């Protein structure tokens, strides 16, 4: 019976996160448009998109992996989200975080990416592997500063358990990692730019180069799933960052505010910079953020 309640809570949690994530996407589109001087789509445009794409009559599949790719992707988003305790102290939003720690979450991020890459690969379209190759490469580079930051956090709180990390940041705003180890946060936030794949790191979807990238062959329901996941996954990542670096959240409102501002960083940077070429992007991540990440570790160990 316990497990059923658990599942029920998880469903609620997921729906909230998805809705939030999608809305956030809409808001961001709006912001972008305003920065560009356009009117922009309505904030609920993502919901419309999902329903619309799902409703497409033509639906084609290139094979079993192609079919499963979006499922993998969505499962990856779901899993990432479900292994994070979203709201500190909340039973409903604790999800399945007891199954593992921060490492689990970090690696579950790969689950969806790998599955999606496989599905896209079977699509047979040349843009898919191009995009994937870029994506994987970039992922490996921003993973380095991010992991350094995570290690710094783990050293600082002597734990990899997200709940413990959040708990340690409670009490005062000065307890946030943002203030106790700013280097780690800087490194991680730069990584987040890469993770969110906004410009200047929008290599994968790069519209002018390899239109849409990996999901180029995805259509109808497959695309709908991917779009849904985009919302959920964004929310999951933001929540993770919030937990690690910004003191977590004790209720939904704080969560929404905090994650919004975290996301805003990416958006502002994205709106301001043009896209890197792949090797520029890789070099960038392997240079400054990595050095900052190393400094963050040195900082936490020796100071």
């Amino acid at each position, binding site marked *: 019976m316990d497990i059923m309640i658990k599942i029920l809570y998880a469903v609620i949690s997921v729906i909230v996160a998805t809705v939030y994530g999608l809305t956030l996407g809409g808001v961001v589109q709006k912001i972008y448009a305003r920065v560009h001087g356009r009117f922009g789509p309505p904030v609920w445009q993502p919901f419309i998109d999902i329903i619309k794409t799902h409703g497409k009559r033509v639906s084609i599949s*290139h094979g*079993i992996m192609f079919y499963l790719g979006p499922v993998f992707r969505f*499962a990856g988003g779901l899993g990432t989200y479900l292994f994070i305790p979203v709201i500190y102290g909340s039973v409903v939003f604790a999800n*399945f975080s007891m199954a593992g720690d921060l*490492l689990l979450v970090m690696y579950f991020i790969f689950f969806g990416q790998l599955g999606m890459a496989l599905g896209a690969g*079977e699509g047979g379209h040349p843009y898919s592997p191009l995009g994937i*190759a870029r994506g*994987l490469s970039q992922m490996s580079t921003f*993973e380095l500063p991010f992991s350094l930051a995570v290690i710094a956090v783990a050293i600082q709180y002597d*734990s990899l358990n997200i709940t413990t990390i959040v708990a340690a940041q409670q009490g005062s705003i000065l307890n946030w990692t943002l203030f106790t180890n700013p280097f780690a946060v800087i490194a991680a936030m730069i990584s987040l730019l890469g993770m969110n794949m906004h410009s200047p790191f929008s290599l994968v979807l790069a519209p002018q180069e390899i239109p849409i990238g990996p999901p180029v062959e995805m259509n109808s329901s497959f695309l709908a799933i991917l779009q849904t996941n985009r919302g959920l996954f964004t929310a999951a990542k933001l929540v993770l960052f919030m937990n690690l670096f910004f003191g977590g959240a004790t209720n939904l409102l704080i969560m929404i505010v905090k994650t919004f501002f975290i996301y805003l960083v990416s958006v502002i940077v994205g709106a301001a910079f043009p896209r890197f070429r792949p090797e520029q992007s890789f070099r960038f991540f392997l240079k400054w953020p990595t050095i900052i990440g190393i400094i963050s570790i040195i900082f936490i160990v020796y100071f």
Partner: protein
Amino acid sequence: MVNPIYIIILSLAAGFLLSIFDKSGRKLSLIVFYSVLTFNVFVIADWFYRFTVLGVSTLTINTAGFSAPLSINLQLGIQEAFVLLFANLTGLLAAIYLIKKFKESNISSLVLYLILIMGVNGLVMTRDLFNMFVFLEILSISTFALTILTKNKKSLSAGFKYMIAGGVASTFFLLGVVFVYYFTGNLNLDFINPSDFTNYGLIAIFLLSIAVFIELKPFPANGWALDVYESVNSGITSVIAVVNSAAIIFVFYKIMPLLPQNLLNIFGIAGVVTFFFSNLMGLKQTNAKRLLGYSSIGQMGLLVASIIYTIHSPNKLIYLIVGGFFTNHLIAKAGLFWITGIVKKEKIKDWGILKENKFLLILFGLLLFALSGIPPFPGFWAKWEFIKLLVHGKMFFVVGGILLGSLFEIVFLFRWFTIAVKGEVPSENPKISFEFSKYFSTTIFVGITLTISVVIMKYFYDFNWFQFLPLIAVVVLYFLDFIPSKIKGFLSLIAVGIYGYFLYPFESNLQLFFGIIFIVGSAINIIATLNRKNINKGFYGFLLMMIFSFGNLLIAKSYLEFFLAWEFMTISSFVLILRGKKAQKASLLYIIFSTAGAYLMMIGFSLAPNLTSNSALIIAISNINLPILVTVLLAIGFMIKSGSLGVHIWLPEAHAEAESDVSPFISAILLKAGVFGLFMVGISYINHVPAFDMFYWIGWIGVLTAIVGAFLASFQEDAKRLLAYSSMSQVGYIVASIAILSHLGWLSALYLSFNHMMFKSALFIAIAGVYYRTHTRTMYEMGGLIKKMPLSFISVLIGIIAVSGVPPLSGFGAKWLIYSSFIERGWYLQAGVLFFASAVSFLYLYRLIHTIFLGQLKYEHQNVKEAPIWFLIPQVIFMVGIMAISMYPNLIIQPLNSIVGNYFNSSIIVDGYNITSSLGNWNGNMIMFVTMGIFVVPLIILVLLNGRTQTVKQFNIVYAAERPESPQTTHIAYNMFAHYRKALGGWGKPRIWNFWHETNEWAHSLSGLFRQIYTGNGQTYILHIILYIVVIYFIMGV
């Protein structure tokens, strides 16, 4: 019991009369000739038997009715008998080898040959210095004359150079003899008192000994000998290299008691110098016989050094070391010279022709292995004991010279071997002609060397038969080789099973764990080999040899047993790798690195304190306080085998070029032998932590191996090379985890070892299946095979998920353990690098699965079928294994926890399926269920909502609004991560490969440089000799 003086008498009488006998036909003279030679062998063999078995005391023979010192006396003791037995035997066999020549040529050749052998007997037995001179001259003159048995310009000029050099040497010998008489009033060795030599009387001894030493061809005063080896008839060369050398080395041995210690030391060093330089110069040699000449000269140097350095050791040891080197060199060299005479190819590159004659190839291989000092041949034992002796005497420069020289020797000998096995058959192709007599002699010698090996193993060491199971396996399967491959495969499987059964009751669970990896892992991998068709000569023998030596590593009770198993493992895996189609270079690289590692281990084991308990080494070593140097040497040795960064360059070649069903053994199991060794070092280390924290640096090396391996894997086009680099990277993780030296660290290392064994076997077998069907390993030539080979795809899919560490499969457990242990240990930066490596690994993993199975199917693969059943079975087994420990990690974590608990206090709490470390937790079972849930739910939703999906043909894609032209242009696979490589810039250069390449070039340039002292001018050679004498004299400094 025949008085050995009859050897001299009979040979002489026959020699004098042969030309008369020849008047009545060559048949009679041949009969006389061969019966005298045979008679010699029997007489000496009889005496040898008496001395060794019956314990008869040394025989002294006086002549002229007076006793020494009035008359000349001969002496036959066990040493003389030993030398003479082999000299006479070689003489007889070489004569048989030359029978065709003897039938045709002038009767003088028989006379000369007979008296040559007589001279050797006299030289060895006589105790009188001047008499030695006479016999030396008899020996020399007959040899000079015989150098032109095949008369051509080359042999003539070589013979002339030989004569002048020999003449100069004998002049000095004569001077030495008379001055010895002048100073002591005696010529008989037994009556000369070394203390009679006053200060400048030493010059007499110096002249005497330097002359003998020159005859032993020291570097650089040995150019004449090389020319002789190169140009003279192979049969005669074998006699010169073996019989003459044996006699002269014995002369040296006889006069040794007269020599002052400082001169002995000089000669010892000179011997080692000779060994080192002749092997160095051999590197560049392309002429087969001259190469053997270099090797021969080197071996003589080694032999001299061994005699000098062992002189104060117990008899048994002297017999083992000097006797070992002696017989080893003698037999192998004679045999190889004979084979060069059979093959009749001057240039080594033409020796590919040998592979058309399997029998000869086996003989060649055995002799070459013997010469290289590979177990069980006598040279191995001699080298082991000799190095031990030298190391205990703290003569590290000598050790270094000998081992480096040996390594050079390994390089050129095995290069030759790989050419013989894999080289091209020369286009103008006179077949190797069959001459019974030549084959006969060579075969006999191979038989003898094997017999001696057995004798050494039986009488000098008390090994139990289990230690020799690897060899027995090869021999048994050699005789069963006619059976079809499949049956042999099944038999091997059964044999491995039985072996495992006997091996089973281990003393510790760590052994059991590695036993499972080695034996069970091998057994499952054998299934894939059942796909082989036809007979597959020699495959299963060496496969079993390798598997049995894995097992023997576990139960080895002494350093020697361990090293023995290690060497068996190396040589068997070398042969297996060499079986690959283009494995010539790869296997050579492998054996060179392995040997270098083995030599380091040899020094390490020699330095290690004696074991105090009678348990298996891995247990016994925990009580041993290994000095730091030993730890370092052993660790390097083991890390070479596990392909750590810097010494990894053999690894991709070997993995890639081995036959595709051999690669899983090498990657999944062989590398673990190095891991096992590192554990062994670690077990001693944790109980006796030295001041220098070596494992900290090993940790860094492991971490860097992981990242570099991952990058290199990402840039490969060849599927097997990709997997090879992946193995390197994964083993880097393992090595780094061992280096942590904590509970969690070792737990991760063991966990990952087991995991790696399973997923890498599965991956390699899957690729083997793909290769079997598509006949290519180049990934961009494939694509879209998922529809043709779905099972293989699933296997690869599970494999790469397990490698990558993505939950919910077992790989995540490894990652979790590793990061936890690194952070717990405080190795933060290392952990960061590992994170990076793990992210990079996605690159190659995706590349592997995508370029082969996804994307566009090529036209030529339209009709490809699923991999054969024999490939699928092991893959399924491994997949089940991976799934099982993913779902129920306790299955493996619990036992590993208790194994590592023997060495460290447990740092994890296992509660149900939940594993908690000091940092976090991991519940594999729950993750699995959650993952399944979140995967299945959307899937069901998708299936329900998306019923209208239609599957389209593969080419039905939207590509810039046009239809693509062909799968080749549409399948993005070639140089997939070009941008990454660009981003890495200078970091992407193959520096390590370049380093080794440069090292190789340098060694060869040096070789080329040094050998230019051999100008070919006879006069220069004499100048070398004179200068050598002068220089040694000044070094000695009377």
